[in-house]
């Protein structure tokens, strides 16, 4: 029996790593190596007649002239890319504010108050998640035309028509908020849903007003969900380039993602594009690490 048991343990011990192997190899080959390729291109010191960088696979060949130049141009006020970074930050910030102001109440209502209609509310809130992102943007392009429904609606109140699609920052911020709200609401919903109803009832039974209950009980308990929601929306938003292209298309509203797309897909200077990708990743790494540490901690609590 003991023999059998130990043999079995050994078999199992080999089994689990074996199961994890293909996925791990996949992620190494298609996530980590590609990242290295970004560095090899960003730190390339040679270009060909198409002005395309020749990747420097050997770290000893790395040259940081381009990368340093991109850093200087990104973070000094007179730099070429300074504006796109500032815009990325401002647009993401306001879009996230809108997400919070609208998303929190909605998630709260769906998770705790919808009562009998809970299933319906949840289904409707989840619906946009299953609708193609570009389709949802396309829908707004229809509405925001000069002779579209939005201007017609505003016309009812005597508001003169506005060219929403003519490179307006406001349109871009709202489009971002609209696009990412479903992704914001869902993790928040999940965390609000987990809060023990009895805690809230206790608070209310003690005569605490709903605002105070919210501030002192609900909000702290949903902190983790809120952070997840913020991170999960902020990261892709910072790398967005299609939303503003669809609803604006003006250089006036271009973000860092547009600049990356320009250099990588529409131009030969891929080393500058790769350097911007690296820089964006470094900026976002802070948020990613924070989020990963939080989730690791949470999953440890679960397994304990």
């Amino acid at each position, binding site marked *: 029996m003991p023999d059998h048991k130990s043999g079995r343990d050994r*078999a199992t011990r080999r*089994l*689990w*790593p074996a*199961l*994890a192997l*293909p*996925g791990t190899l*996949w*992620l190494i080959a*298609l*996530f980590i*190596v590609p990242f290295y*390729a*970004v560095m090899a*291109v960003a730190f390339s010191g040679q270009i060909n007649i198409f002005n395309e960088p020749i*990747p420097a*696979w050997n770290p000893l060949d790395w040259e940081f002239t381009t990368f340093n130049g991109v850093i200087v141009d990104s973070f000094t006020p007179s730099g070429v890319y300074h504006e796109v970074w500032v815009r990325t930050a401002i647009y993401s910030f306001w879009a996230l504010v809108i997400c919070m102001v609208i998303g929190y*109440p*909605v998630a709260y*209502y769906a998770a705790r*108050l919808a009562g009998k209609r809970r299933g319906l*509310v949840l289904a*409707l809130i989840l619906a*946009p998640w*299953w609708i*193609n*992102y*570009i*389709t949802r943007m*396309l829908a707004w*392009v*229809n509405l925001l*035309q000069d002779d*579209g429904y939005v201007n017609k609606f505003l016309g009812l109140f005597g508001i003169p028509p506005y060219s929403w699609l003519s490179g307006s920052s406001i349109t871009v911020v709202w489009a971002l908020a609209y696009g990412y709200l479903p992704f914001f609401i869902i993790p928040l919903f*999940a965390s609000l849903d987990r809060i023990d109803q009895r805690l809230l009832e206790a608070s209310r039974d*003690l*005569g*605490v*007003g*709903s*605002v105070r209950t919210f501030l002192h009980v609900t909000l702290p308990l949903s902190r983790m969900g809120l952070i*997840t929601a913020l991170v999960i929306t902020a*990261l*892709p938003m910072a*790398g*967005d380039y*299609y939303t503003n292209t*669809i609803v604006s*298309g003006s250089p006036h509203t271009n973000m860092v993602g547009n600049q*990356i797309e320009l250099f*990588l897909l529409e131009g030969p200077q891929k080393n500058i594009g*790769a350097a911007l*990708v690296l820089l964006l990743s470094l900026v*976002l790494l802070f*948020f990613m690490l924070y989020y*990963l540490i939080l*989730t*690791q901690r949470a*999953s440890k609590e679960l397994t304990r």
Partner: protein
Amino acid sequence: MTVLERPAVAEVSKPVRRRVPPWRNPWRRPYILGAITWLYIAWSLLPVLIAIQFSFNDGRSRSVWQGFSTQWYCCNEGSVFEDPSMFLALKNSLILGIATVLVATPLGVMLAMGLTRWRSRTSAAANGISLVPLVTPELVVGSALYLVMINLYQFVPLGRPAMLLGHVTFTVSYVLVIVRSRLLSIGGEYEEAARDLGASPMQAIRTVLVPLLMPAIFASAMIVFATSLDDFVVSQFLFGNASNATVPILLYNAVRASPTPALNALATILLVGTFLALILTVLVLKARRRGTDESALETLADWG
């Protein structure tokens, strides 16, 4: 404590019957939150419904209603089924989505089993790394894959093979997260029991673990499918040529060129297809759900 005093004082000075003002009443119906939620739902879905409406427009305009017609769906020049590129894009999207599910789901499930049950320092590291794609902006994933494919993995032609690799890479983490949370909640006892009864490790997985994981596997397959259909960024970087363009790529290019209601029709078809697949999944999940009080929708919602 101060909170408690106030209602008490009020009761003493003006005894009985004095109605608590609605904003003080912790048990009042959540009218305001309800209103916000329903307004949000209207805001998030109405534009899409209007876009669907315009797919039936009897004219070129996507902002002025000119009467009902199905000319943009079929049998007219420029309609979805007459325009080979649109029909092709629809086909490409579906093939890619299904292929991604077929690769990413088993890969992710195996990874989840391996990483969850195999306890070591390596697995902890692998665990952390495997979550990174989940929080990496698609732009970063897309550009890194693009640079590695054109510079290093030149044997992988851009197009469907490259797109498949890309889609699997960023969806496999979804499978991992969903399946792992289920694995953590069911614990290791069932497999142990199966092993004690003489099952081989593989048998234990096949006969005990996989059936237990089925709801999570279904949910993650569905999410992988939807994510793949929804993806624009990774596809745009890797699609190569028009033969492999997916619906989002076509929509994005066309919305910038000369859009017609045929685009709305195309988007509508994709949307209807996605929802049919979704309903199917929900039904399957419902049928499989035994003894758990989790609703199918919530299984899907709970992915975060």
